[in-house]
């Protein structure tokens, strides 16, 4: 009787988890797909099914222009992110570059900062009236670059996406059997030749995976294209959705939904390709012999020139870009013509603390990140356990479901959920509360948390489960007594990742926030369009500070380490 009861409750928990994840993932997608076949809003009764919106899209020249711009931007920024991240990974992991630890550490910084803050940083430093631009104009007499161009935008986006390439490739680079490089040296190859012929091809799977992920990211990027691209009239698929679905006075729901469906299809296809394309990965894996001391490739006389070059690059395009908003937040105006001490001020911070909306958005952000991070971690852990460690029929499909939001751009998550709230009876209770933001954020970052928990769970041998089961434990006991305790570090990492992403997130929130449920990201965007860059910088600085404080605390408590 006891065994029977534990079986029933285990099944109930498993099915509930499955249903919850399924509901969450489908919540924004279903309304978008349905809406794209309607000319009138979904919640209007009596609408008819039609293909008219797709037809309209087909004849819309601005749409095709946006497709073209998005593709060029995606390819350019992916290439740039690859070049930077790959070079850094090989130099840090495989060579005796002086200061390689610091090179790798700084390389990761952009990953912890919102794209809004990065956009502000690029504009403040390298924009038409940016600090570095004006300074160089003084010396050279003309501006050698234009940030508000497809090239400038791609460079900014590429640099901000380089941490992902770096993380993917450095993991792979560290596992390269150094005897492969040694064998090349002995066979007669110099250090550069050995890197080119042996180390680089070994990284092919990591390069491919990060290239596709970055291409997906660049296609769904909103802040950088919106803030750096719009001034010169460029339109992208995401800005198309944002401007017509949100900013426009009379949004054309069906048309926007049709664009969204196109976007969804493209991104889904890319994600599927990425999973399939890697093929026979054993061609890149070697079975090592005894644990020899890994030998580093010696760069010889190139050591210092390469190191200086790389540090200069990072100082300009990472450190300066990240510090620009911080400095900007403490001054009235940032220009090389006025000494910085003459314009120092706390006014930006005083002004934001004077407004209710600012205080509220900071408070809301903290709440969303804490509560959302906790609930998200619980849900993702449950999903991983059901998917990988239960005999529920179709359990593997849960894993696919949890990873699917990778293919859903943030703007679409927000838009889909807005429509769902208006359309599904009962959900309107959540309207204009931070609860709806939490739902959207968890949905969007399911794959991120999954990435933290799933590998750790796979590391635990199923023999643990079998041993506990034969000792008389039911599924729930196995999970709570045997597996979860061993997963504690992974749960911590999952919470950390969700927290940081929730603090940074704005794209999924732009459609969802209302007076009372603002978060830092949306408030920044609002004030950006009002032209109050000082306040935006102050908020950005606060956002960076929150991430820093939290990560330091996490590091102290969990002893956790990331990347580098």
């Amino acid at each position: 009787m006891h065994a029977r009861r534990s079986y029933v409750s285990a099944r109930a928990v498993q099915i509930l988890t499955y249903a919850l994840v399924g509901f969450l993932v489908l919540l924004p997608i279903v309304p978008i797909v349905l809406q794209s076949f309607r000319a009138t809003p979904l919640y209007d009764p009596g609408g008819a099914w039609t293909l008219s919106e797709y037809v309209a899209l087909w004849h819309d020249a601005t749409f095709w222009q946006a497709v073209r711009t998005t593709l060029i931007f995606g390819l350019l920024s992916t290439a740039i992110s690859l070049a930077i991240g790959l070079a850094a990974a090989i130099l840090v992991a495989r060579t005796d570059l002086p200061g390689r630890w610091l090179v790798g550490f700084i390389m990761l910084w952009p990953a912890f900062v919102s794209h809004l803050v990065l956009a502000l940083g690029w504009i403040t430093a390298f924009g038409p009236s940016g600090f570095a631009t004006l300074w160089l104009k003084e010396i050279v007499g003309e501006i050698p670059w234009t940030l508000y161009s497809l090239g400038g935008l791609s460079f900014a986006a590429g640099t901000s996406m380089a941490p992902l390439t770096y993380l993917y490739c450095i993991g792979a680079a560290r596992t390269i059997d150094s005897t492969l490089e040694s064998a090349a040296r002995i066979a007669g190859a110099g250090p550069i030749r050995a890197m080119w012929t042996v180390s680089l091809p070994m990284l092919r799977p990591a390069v491919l995976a990060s290239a596709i992920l970055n291409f997906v990211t660049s296609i769904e990027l909103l802040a950088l294209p919106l803030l750096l691209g719009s001034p010169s009239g460029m339109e992208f698929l995401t800005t198309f959705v944002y401007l017509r679905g949100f900013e426009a006075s009379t949004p054309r729901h069906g048309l926007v939904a049709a664009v969204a469906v196109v976007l969804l299809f493209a991104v889904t296809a890319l994600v599927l390709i990425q999973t399939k394309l890697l093929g026979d990965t054993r061609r890149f894996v070697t079975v090592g012999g005894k644990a020899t001391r890994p030998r580093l490739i010696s760069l010889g006389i190139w050591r210092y020139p390469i190191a200086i070059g790389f540090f200069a690059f990072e100082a300009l395009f990472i450190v300066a870009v990240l510090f620009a908003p911080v400095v900007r937040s403490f001054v009235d105006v940032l220009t090389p013509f006025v000494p910085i001490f003459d314009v120092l001020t706390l006014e930006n911070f005083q002004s934001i603390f004077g407004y209710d909306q600012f205080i509220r958005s900071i408070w809301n952000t903290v709440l969303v990140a804490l509560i959302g991070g906790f609930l998200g971690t619980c849900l993702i852990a449950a999903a991983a356990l059901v998917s990988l460690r239960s005999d529920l029929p179709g359990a593997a499909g849960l894993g696919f479901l949890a990873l699917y939001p990778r293919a859903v751009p943030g703007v679409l998550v927000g838009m889909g959920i807005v429509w769902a709230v208006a359309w599904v009876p009962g959900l309107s209770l959540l309207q204009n509360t931070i609860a709806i933001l939490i739902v959207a954020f968890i949905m969007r970052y399911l794959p991120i948390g999954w990435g933290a928990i799933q590998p750790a769970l796979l590391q635990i041998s199923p023999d643990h489960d079998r041993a506990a089961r034969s000792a008389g434990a039911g599924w729930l006991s196995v999970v709570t007594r045997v597996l979860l305790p061993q997963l504690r570090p992974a749960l911590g990492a999952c919470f950390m990742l969700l927290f940081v992403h929730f603090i940074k997130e704005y794209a999924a929130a732009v459609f969802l926030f209302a007076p009372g449920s603002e978060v830092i990201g949306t408030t920044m965007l609002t004030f950006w369009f009002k032209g109050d860059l000082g306040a935006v910088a102050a908020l950005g600085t606060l956002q960076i500070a929150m991430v820093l404080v939290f990560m330091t605390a996490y590091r102290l408590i969990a002893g956790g380490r990331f990347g580098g």
Partner: protein
Amino acid sequence: MAEVTVRSLVVQYGKVAAVDGVSFTVKEGEFLTLLGPSGCGKSTTLAAIAGLERPNSGLISVGDTVFFDSARSIWLEPEARSLGLVFQSYALWPHMTIEENCAFPLRLRKIGREERLRRIREALELVDMAAYASRYPHQLSGGQQQRAALARTLVYQPRVLLLDEPLSNIDAKLRDRARSWLKDLQNRVGITTIYVTHDQVEALALSDRIAVMNEGKIVQLDAPRVIYESPDDPFVADFIGTTTFLPATLQTDGKAVLSDGQSLGLPSQGRSPLRGSVNLAIRPERVRIVGAEVAETAAHVNATIKSKSYLGGRFAYDIALAGTVLKVESDKEHPTGDVNLAIDPNALIVFPA
């Protein structure tokens, strides 16, 4: 092809000397093995010769070429040494086929296509791998990978062949075959070879000479037979083959008295002027178990068989003698219990206690 000279080589990791003043010469065409337990410095010595590890001091040269000389600050990068090294992991580049693996060193040497293909074919035929030229490494078995790695090394005719435990990743069953095949190959190619292993059987079977290493130093360098039959040092006696050490006291009459009062005869040409406490080293196959039916003589000692195990064709015994457990092997089966042992005086090696 050339003679290898290593003189006063020191490789330091922090404060620990992994290689501590190693010197040896390998004659042209000779097969020398560096043998020792893990961490004895044998692989580090090999890496220093190959140029993968930069020594702190000493000299390494091959023929007239000085690879490393701390006194004259000479250091040659690995790619400039023209040596061949087969790694324990084989280090076949996994993204290239076997043929491409072999072609890479030839391309680096700017050898034309026709000549390149001819030499690759020759090298692969030499190791019986011609049929696998277009395979990727992961499609080969361990033994095939090892032969492919050898082909990749021999294809550019290196001056010296360095082998770092090349047989240790092969199944035990295939290892014997791979070993005699390797010996045969070295005979045919006639290349100067330095071989690193911790497996004494491999070392004894393959080598012209063996350098036994311990804690960064060469303990003994001799022909295999000398190493096995007259070790200079208790470490060598213990490491090569199975050896039991019997504590005893040497007497002026040339006899050794065990702790229980029984005595053993010693080799006639006493090589040690030792007195007092000693250890007698003895090999398991040099002790004869005398059955109860044979009359006891003065040359016999009393002992007790504690346990035995069947090894297939022969038996291994643990025999208690004067408080020490003696390892003995015999092709005859004896019951456990009291027994007499006949020990040939010439089978005993005397070391100071």
